[in-house]
């Protein structure tokens, strides 16, 4: 099974086994991983699911919408910034590790 690992600012780490196609946002919200809100329900419209992706993984490019939203996150945007609702495991990508930012709203 694919896995997603969440690193909290406190250093705490959670690894979850998930189904193919599970997004970083939905997995976090469904399992109560703190620090990921997902207020728009995954429509790339709220930027409250911001994460920093660890390592050099093959994720689809940011859409224009995602790119614009990432300019407006509550915690600083870096090259590793993605919207958690727009990235998923599966399709050859078996694991994802992300850092949860200090704030979302």
């Amino acid at each position: 099974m694919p896995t997603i690992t969440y690193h909290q600012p406190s250093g705490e780490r959670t690894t979850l086994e998930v189904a193919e196609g599970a997004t970083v946002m939905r997995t976090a919200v469904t399992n109560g991983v703190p620090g990921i809100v997902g207020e728009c329900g995954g429509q790339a419209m709220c930027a409250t699911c911001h994460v920093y992706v660890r390592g050099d993984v093959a994720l689809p490019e940011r859409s224009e919408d995602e790119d614009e939203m990432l300019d407006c996150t509550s915690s600083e945007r870096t090259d590793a910034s993605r919207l958690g609702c727009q990235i998923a495991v599966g399709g050859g990508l078996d694991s994802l590790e992300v850092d949860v930012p200090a704030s979302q709203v």
Partner: protein
Amino acid sequence: MPGVVIVGAGQAGIEAACVLREAGYARSVTVLGEERGTPYQRPPLSKDLSAGGELPLLPLRAPRALAELGVTVIEGARATRLLRGERLVEYTAADGRPHRLEYEHLILATGGTARGTGPGGGQRPGEDAAGVHRLRTREDAQALASALRTARSVAVIGGGVIGLEFASISAAARVPTTVLERGQRILRRFVGGESAAWLHGRHEDRGVRILRQATVEGFERTEDGPVAAVLLAGGGRLEADLVLVGTGVTPAVSLAADAGLECAGGITVDARLRTADPRISAIGDCASFVSPHAPAPLRLESVQNATDQARFVGRALAAELAAPADLAGRADAAEPGGAPAPAQQNYVDLPWFWSVQAGVKVQVAGLATDAGASVVIGDPSAGKFSVLRFAGERLVCVESIGRPADHLAARRLLAAGDGPTLAEARAGRIESLKSWNAVVPV
């Protein structure tokens, strides 16, 4: 000591419960929720719905997260009566047994129910027929998804946000879809005329037929009972085997009203979201509140409104109800031993909305109105533009289609009250709101 009781385990109620805890409230937090199962987000119901498909529910917060915070949610519990003198709420538990719960503060977050097509939101004859749907709960969405699998023609009553979101889905599923709008134009409560006209065209391009000034008078049923057609004023008849009534929401006010609290188009609350009883607040879809962004009391149905009001009330109560001992050591604490200073600020948050329909994302910051001047920036022909709305010279609302950065900038500018003036916008040099700050000469 009794704690805070919240009626309604929806967007507002769950958020308020969590914020109370996160802000340090130490006594019990209990949420009574009539719906069964894990409390869930409603917006995906009309966006992730697909013909015949399973609808993956998105929880508001995971049960584990609620438990860790120390929030008790009683599922299947319907509050039936408030005894304000004794600070008690009566409820019927999932097993049908009556219970009572004492509170030191009560938050009403009861949301609302889908309106019918009749006067006052009631149902017209035939509206209870099989095939006539509403869309408010997960059960509604599941029923719609399975009905859409076999539907031959869809009629949506009401050209509002939910009706048009569903029409987008049913038309994309290649089911002939007609929207019946009673007024002169669609989306009257959501966007102004320019955006509505643009979206109207876009819906029609994608196969949604929209009839305006179409007033529903009743429903025709087939012999074995299900709906066969929608009947219109003036003798029109529209065949449909799937009807979605999307005529809005009736706020759930009966608990408050029966307890003698004022209700006028919602549970009446003041600028701090309190009812006339200082121990009872109301938030979210059920509350009629005053706002610096609106000339008259208003009731809004949005995630922003539910969560921001929940955060406001949760934080204010956590500060106000904290026992002096709880406050010791907190940076913002009042003098130890002295009465904690109640938070006296008003709720002033800027309303904002979003919708996904006709294949585009629509975001609105502020309250749309057709009064006043407007300026369009961006490129409507490319499906990427924003409409800036003004009251006099002052920017009051921005509607963005395919321009999320404008929307986020607009929220910031409107909240701070320093957006471009009408004259500045008309001078025609605003390419995007995001870069607006950069171009203002100080």
